[in-house]
């Protein structure tokens, strides 16, 4: 890690006040006259540092506080408490110099002008971000090549496929060559090919321009492919900050044993060996504690009609789900 972090969050906290209302005419009247509020703790004392050029995955279930944290770091919302410095600026002051250094891409929102070719939105952004004409052309051709989007720039955005649209969104968001990329679900709803393309692009962009990336995604494959380091947030609190591999060590003290059987067996037949995750016909999937693995595998081979046996790391999705079921295991 270099001396000066490009993203610094210290004790970042965001509480909202939400008006409460019950369903009934009386309650509606009472609500109208005398509102009652409840405080929602969206983010609670989150601290981390990210060095220039790092790609960090941000994991958490819906409503965990990921987007709220991203919005604080991009200056869209004021924290209730705490400090943040991004690329040398306090985000919520929204200075022009700061806005030119960052970008936020949200998979569920778009900035492209729907009825015009994407190139028109790019021209607009180039003007807004003071990018000279020559430089603008250079960047568009470079980025559209990286995204294999070259021949789509003159079509109205509404005629593009979802994947092409996301690529064009990325291009529009990166035209001013930001130093820090905040990507909120950039692959949301894309098919597998488009997901891979977007992922490859983000990796290449990071490599080529040394940009820092903080990325949230529901697709574990995105995180696994891009981020060496992950932040895990749950109910507004940071549960884990460290390498992806360490997350498996800490939260998945078990291995997955995949079996192919000679003939089907009832579920009860496996209970002695581990937790049954899946049982369908001749295929079974068991979770076995890491420290008992050798012994259990030997027992399985001895007592079950095994045709094939395979030991794997459990899928990341399941590990994450386990983390979120047991927030007390916090780091």
């Amino acid at each position, binding site marked *: 890690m270099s001396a000066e972090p490009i993203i610094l969050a210290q004790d970042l906290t*965001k509480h*909202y006040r939400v008006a409460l209302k019950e369903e009934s005419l009386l309650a509606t009247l009472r609500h109208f006259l005398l509102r009652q509020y409840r405080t929602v703790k*969206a983010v609670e004392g989150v601290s981390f540092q990210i060095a220039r050029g790092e790609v960090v995955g941000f994991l958490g279930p819906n409503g965990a506080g990921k987007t*709220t944290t991203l*919005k604080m770091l*991009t*200056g*869209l*919302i*004021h924290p209730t408490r705490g400090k943040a410095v991004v690329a040398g600026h306090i985000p*919520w002051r*929204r200075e*022009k110099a700061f*806005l*030119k250094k*960052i*970008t*936020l891409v*949200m998979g569920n*929102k778009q*900035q492209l*002008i729907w*009825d*015009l070719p994407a190139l*028109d*939105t790019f*021209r*607009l*952004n*180039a*003007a*807004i*971000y*003071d990018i000279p004409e020559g430089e603008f052309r250079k960047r568009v051709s470079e980025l559209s090549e990286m995204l294999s989007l070259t021949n789509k720039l003159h079509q109205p955005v509404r005629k593009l496929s979802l994947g092409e649209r996301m690529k064009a969104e990325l291009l529009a968001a990166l035209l001013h060559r930001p130093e820090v990329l905040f990507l909120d679900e950039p692959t949301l709803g894309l098919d597998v090919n488009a997901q891979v393309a977007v992922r490859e692009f983000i990796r290449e962009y990071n490599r080529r321009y040394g940009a820092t990336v903080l990325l949230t995604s529901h697709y574990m494959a995105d995180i696994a492919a891009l981020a060496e380091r992950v932040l895990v947030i749950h109910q507004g609190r940071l549960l884990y900050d460290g390498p992806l591999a360490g997350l498996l060590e800490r939260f998945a003290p078990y291995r997955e044993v995949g079996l192919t059987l000679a003939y089907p067996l009832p579920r009860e037949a496996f209970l002695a060996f581990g937790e049954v995750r899946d049982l369908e016909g001749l295929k079974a999937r068991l979770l076995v504690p890491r420290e008992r693995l050798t012994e259990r595998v030997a027992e399985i081979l001895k007592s079950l009609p095994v045709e094939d046996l395979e030991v794997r790391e459990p899928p990341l999705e399941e590990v994450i789900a386990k983390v979120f079921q047991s927030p007390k295991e916090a780091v």
Partner: protein
Amino acid sequence: MRKAGTLLSVYLAYMLEYRAELFLWALAGALPLILLGVWTEAARGGEFPLSPGEFARYFLMVFLVRQATVVWVVWEFERDVVEGRLSFRLLRPLDPFFDHLAAHTAERLARLPFVVLLTLLFFALFPEARFLPEPGAFLLGLGLTVLAFLLRYTMQYTTALLTFWTERATSVEEVFFLLYLFLSGTIAPLEVFPEPLKSLALLTPFPYLVYLPAALLAGQEVALFPGLWIMLLWGVGFLLLSRLLWRLGLRRYSGQGA
């Protein structure tokens, strides 16, 4: 300059995508042309400060001024806030005030051919409206039309900022629109107002949005002062108020969760 040029050219392309809608919008603004028929007929029979020809010219100019000063920023702004698109605008190093202003200006250019077409059509239908304007007053009228557009835009932008508090700023705008309809001279020129009402109306910003520029363009005898000062005073007032609301509103928006 380049920024303004690009904004205009992109928004012009955008507006031209809606040619058919633009034509319908221009047509929907034809209320003054209907009133033109009503008032010229009335003027033929009764005692009015304006002749049928003057009425016809006035309402034609009302039509043109209104076409040049159409503003819809409150609807756009409300939608941005409700749908969460304001965040994108806030992430750009450009105040949305100017972004929307550029879109409105570009729309004027895209609308122009339809307006010219409708004007020619009505010259054919109402020959008494035809006239050769006096260049000095006409140019002054054009300048005032630009000011009227800026005033109307700033007023509506100020209303739009109420979205930060109510999410129904358009309802407030509709109340304003009623006042606008009666006091701006859209329904009747201020000459036919009873004197106390006319004096009162001239203290509000509304007559400067339509009446003053239209009357000048139509070649009527109107006093430019103190009207112009009142207009500028309202303009500066709304501009300052909108800056204040923007600052307070952003604080509220970012406090609540964008």
